[in-house]
């Protein structure tokens, strides 16, 4: 016993067993799935349903007969399995694609036409592209070559950059015709015709040369042979020139590729190395930040703008690292042809990150720079009881534990003072001496510092500590300045200006040498080389009191001449001629000639004359 279902198939009424109905339903569903809407699915399904109805109708004798699973199986075997539709469907799938292509790519594309080439097919490719005969392009090239050498460069560039039309589709695209089956067919047919032509040509040539050979045998030289030989020669020349240019092209391409690979490797190395260095730098800065290595304090106090260190280092990492990353990526891309792209999102994210970082770094730099906009001075003036004829001796304090190790300019360090507080020390101390007509000497201590604003600058300048001691005509100066780390390193500087009355005497200790300048400017009259001597102050200058007088240099060179007639050596001078002689030595002077003799020695002067 079976349950039946009533169905309406293409307007016809059927009784159908339930299991048969389910099978039929599955079948129609499967067919439906194998089509897409674009192919007119509903219409096809309707047609198929109508046909099935027809087939059922043939198998039903009267209205009361029920369609069983057997009939459904029969019909399915006639209509075909869903897989059969699927196979055909795959073929039809190309149809909408080709129509799509026809719409989008009717435009011409530039390819090198190697089928009609002399050198590399650039000219005939351009000819196709501009729709003119290749001969005009070639003429233009010749003019370009002869007129300007750059034409050759352009040609080689085109040769490298313009792809060769290899596939039939590309060859069709080159001429601007739409790529479809009929065109491809036409192209192939043309090719066939060419082949048949050449084949028939060859056949003709062969038959001709055979007959020529026959003629040769009968020792009749025919003109035809000459012609054919000439023709062959011509063909040979053309083919050899082709192969020559082809090989040349290959060689150039080979070197170009090798060069490109080399550049690629170089880029990868540069990129990778820089990235590694940057990453190490970033990590070490980060780690230092966390575990607080003492050396970092220096960075902290130098950081006048108070920018967080981690931010600055991260920003500079991105600002510098991302370009290197792209360099690295470029190198990889050159080396590996089908490298997977990192994707546009990643690219633009990196680009954005780079822009932000660069702007950030710029802001930090401006902030830091703005800390040095103002450079203000704070001046303290004191009188020193030094009058004319008094002697002032100036010494740096012996305790140079801070100054001995660091060089003169812009050398800041962080150290603990005697109370254990951290202080910034700097050796940026200069001494300038000027002469004055005042009766009493005076000392001006000029403290200067950079700052973001006038007030800040002045405040920092005030916060510079500088100590000196004056007693009994002895001036003891500190070789360094100190300031609280809060003030940061902002180019703090101490300038000591000594106004000394004319006629007074000053002695700078040797250890002040590095604190004196080397030049006389701004009225300075004592230079580094004057340290260690007593100097008398005169108007706008000094007079050295104990400088050793300049000794004349002893010219000490030995001359040794040893010729038969002239001898100059340690012993003296001896000049001889045939009958005359002159001799100067320890003993004295002897001159001898034919007529006179002069002797000067310990006994006295003796002149003998023969006349």
């Amino acid at each position, binding site marked *: 016993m079976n349950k039946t279902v009533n169905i309406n198939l293409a*307007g016809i009424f059927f009784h159908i067993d339930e299991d048969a109905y389910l099978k039929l339903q599955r079948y129609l569903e499967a*067919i439906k799935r194998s089509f897409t809407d674009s192919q007119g699915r509903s219409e*096809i399904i309707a*047609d*198929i349903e109508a046909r099935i109805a*027809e087939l059922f109708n043939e198998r039903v004798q009267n209205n009361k007969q029920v369609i069983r699973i057997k009939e459904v199986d029969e019909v399915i075997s006639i209509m075909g399995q869903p897989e059969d*539709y699927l196979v055909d469907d795959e073929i039809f799938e190309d*149809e909408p694609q080709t129509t799509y292509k026809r719409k989008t790519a009717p435009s011409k594309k530039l390819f090198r036409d190697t089928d009609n080439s002399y050198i590399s097919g650039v000219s005939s490719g351009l000819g196709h592209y501009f729709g003119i005969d290749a001969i005009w392009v070639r003429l233009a090239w010749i003019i370009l070559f002869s007129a300007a050498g750059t034409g050759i460069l352009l040609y080689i560039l085109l040769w490298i950059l313009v792809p060769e039309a290899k596939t039939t589709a590309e060859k069709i695209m080159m001429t601007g015709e739409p790529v479809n089956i009929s065109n491809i067919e036409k192209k192939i047919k043309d090719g066939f015709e060419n082949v048949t032509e050449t084949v028939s040509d060859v056949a003709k040539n062969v038959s001709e040369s055979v007959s020529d050979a026959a003629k040769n045998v009968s020792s009749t030289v025919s003109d035809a042979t000459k012609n054919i030989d000439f023709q062959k020669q011509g063909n040979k020349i053309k083919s050899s020139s082709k192969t020559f240019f082809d090989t040349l092209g290959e060689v150039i391409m080979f070197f170009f590729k090798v060069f490109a690979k080399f550049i690629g490797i170089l880029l990868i190395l540069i990129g990778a190395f820089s990235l590694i260095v940057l990453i190490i730098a970033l990590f070490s800065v980060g780690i230092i930040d966390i575990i607080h290595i003492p050396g970092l304090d220096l960075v902290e106090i130098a950081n006048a703008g108070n920018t967080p260190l981690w931010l600055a280092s991260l920003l500079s990492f991105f600002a510098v690292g991302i370009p290197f990353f792209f360099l690295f990526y470029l190198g990889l891309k050159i080396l590996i042809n089908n490298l997977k792209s990192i994707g546009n999102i990643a690219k633009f994210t990196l680009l954005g990150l780079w822009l932000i970082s660069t702007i950030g770094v710029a802001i930090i730099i401006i902030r830091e720079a703005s800390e040095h906009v103002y450079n203000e001075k704070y001046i303290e003036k004191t009188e020193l009881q030094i009058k004319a004829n008094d002697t002032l001796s100036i010494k740096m304090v012996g305790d140079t534990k801070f100054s001995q190790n660091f060089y003169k300019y812009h050398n800041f360090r962080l150290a603990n003072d005697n109370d254990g507080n951290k202080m910034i020390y700097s050796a940026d101390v200069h001494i300038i001496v000027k002469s004055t007509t005042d009766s009493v000497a005076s000392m001006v201590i000029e403290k200067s510092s950079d700052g973001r604003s006038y007030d800040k600058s002045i405040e920092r300048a005030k916060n510079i500590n500088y100590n000196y001691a004056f007693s009994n005509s002895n001036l003891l100066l500190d070789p360094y300045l100190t300031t609280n780390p809060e003030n940061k390193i902002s180019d703090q500087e101490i300038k000591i200006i000594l106004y000394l009355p004319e006629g007074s005497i000053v002695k700078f200790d040797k250890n002040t040498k590095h604190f004196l300048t080397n030049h006389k400017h701004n009225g300075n009259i004592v230079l580094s080389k004057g340290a260690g001597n007593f100097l008398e102050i005169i108007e706008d200058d000094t007079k050295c009191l104990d400088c050793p007088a300049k000794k004349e240099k002893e010219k000490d060179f030995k001359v040794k001449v040893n010729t038969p007639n002239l001898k100059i050596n340690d012993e003296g001078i001896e000049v001889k001629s045939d009958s005359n002689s002159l001799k100067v030595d320890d003993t004295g002077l002897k001159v001898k000639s034919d007529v006179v003799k002069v002797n000067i020695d310990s006994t006295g002067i003796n002149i003998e004359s023969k006349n």
Partner: protein
Amino acid sequence: MKIENTKAQMRKGVLEFCILSVLKDNDAYVAEILDTLKNAKLLVVEGTIYPLLTRLKNAGLLNYRWEESTSGPPRKYYGLTETGKLFLKELNTTWSELHNAVTIVTSQKTTKK
């Protein structure tokens, strides 16, 4: 490359040509076309003809009219349009060319062996 695909592709081109040829002189409904094709053993299963017919119709090569049937649902009678006739003409020449070419190529192979 599947042999089924190649076979189906070969058949597809020919099938279109054959359907048009069947309809050259007189209109026919699907069952009639199918009978002709099945007699010639060109078609194994009927189902594949429907997408083809729809495609040809959509391409403007065929049109159809409905006719009542004494036994069963109304039938679609297909006939060639003017473009269809031109198309068929062109296909005819192509076919004879192709036939020649194929014969030459295939027979050449056998003789050379």
